[in-house]
């Protein structure tokens, strides 16, 4: 799965947590989950759990801390997907 494909799936993960659907449609790697998408911080863990289910990966403590913007989310997901079993 390349970064573009991960981004498409990531939009589905983020959809329930943002009111700003227009901004979500146009997100790029610099989009900040809280500042730009106005996602409540209380939902950040929900997003991590949903991403784990969506990509069948496990996101640990350290990786979760990096997931504050879209590019960082893609970095973490890509690294986990491509990690050899």
């Amino acid at each position, binding site marked *: 799965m390349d970064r573009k494909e991960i981004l498409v799936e990531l939009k589905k993960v983020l959809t329930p947590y943002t009111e700003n659907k227009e901004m979500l449609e146009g997100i790029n790697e610099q989009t900040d989950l809280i500042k730009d998408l*106005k996602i409540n911080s*209380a939902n*950040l863990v929900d997003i991590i759990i949903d991403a784990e289910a969506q990509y069948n990966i496990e996101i640990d403590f350290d990786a979760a*801390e990096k997931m504050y913007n879209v590019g960082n989310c893609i970095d973490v997901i890509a690294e986990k997907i491509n990690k050899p079993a």
Partner: protein
Amino acid sequence: MISAGNDIVALKAVDIQRTQSPAFYSKFINPQEFALYHPNEIALVNFVWLLWSAKESAYKYLKRISPELIFAPAKLVVQQLNIPRPSKVAENTGYYQGKLSAGSTTLSFLSTMSHEYIATIIDQGDVHWKVREIEASDYESQSKAVRDFLLDDLKMPDITVGKHPSGYPVLIKDGKELDIAVSFAHHDRYISYCYQIPK
């Protein structure tokens, strides 16, 4: 430098079942912190969101001091938690108090809890704070309501709320940033502010 940090969690807006799953709370609560949980004193859901709100409040407090800080709840470690006596909890008059460490820094926090929400502040210095329920739960309404709430209570003329380039709120008068540390929080239909004025 004075600072301010607060948070609010609307308990009706959280996923209760998910909150109680170790897969959820272990993302930001480590085993040492989980040892502070005693089921006869506090419900698991409340414990989990209490720790979250303490960490979020601490992040906001520290962000004002170190603007480059990134929210990393696992690195903010709750070291101590004092639960109010059951009678105080029943009357909603008791405060949950605790201490939290962020590297070499230790911060005290204070929380109030009802069936509807958990509200927390970082309790460093002379902090003023309030909570209010509002009608609408969309982001724009929450954001405007919490700013108006503070400005109404401050009763200082010609003050506006701006945003520091790092993202934290500032109070502005005549184009200048005032030396008042403020913090806002909103979740669902609950809003809260806290502020601190230097003595």
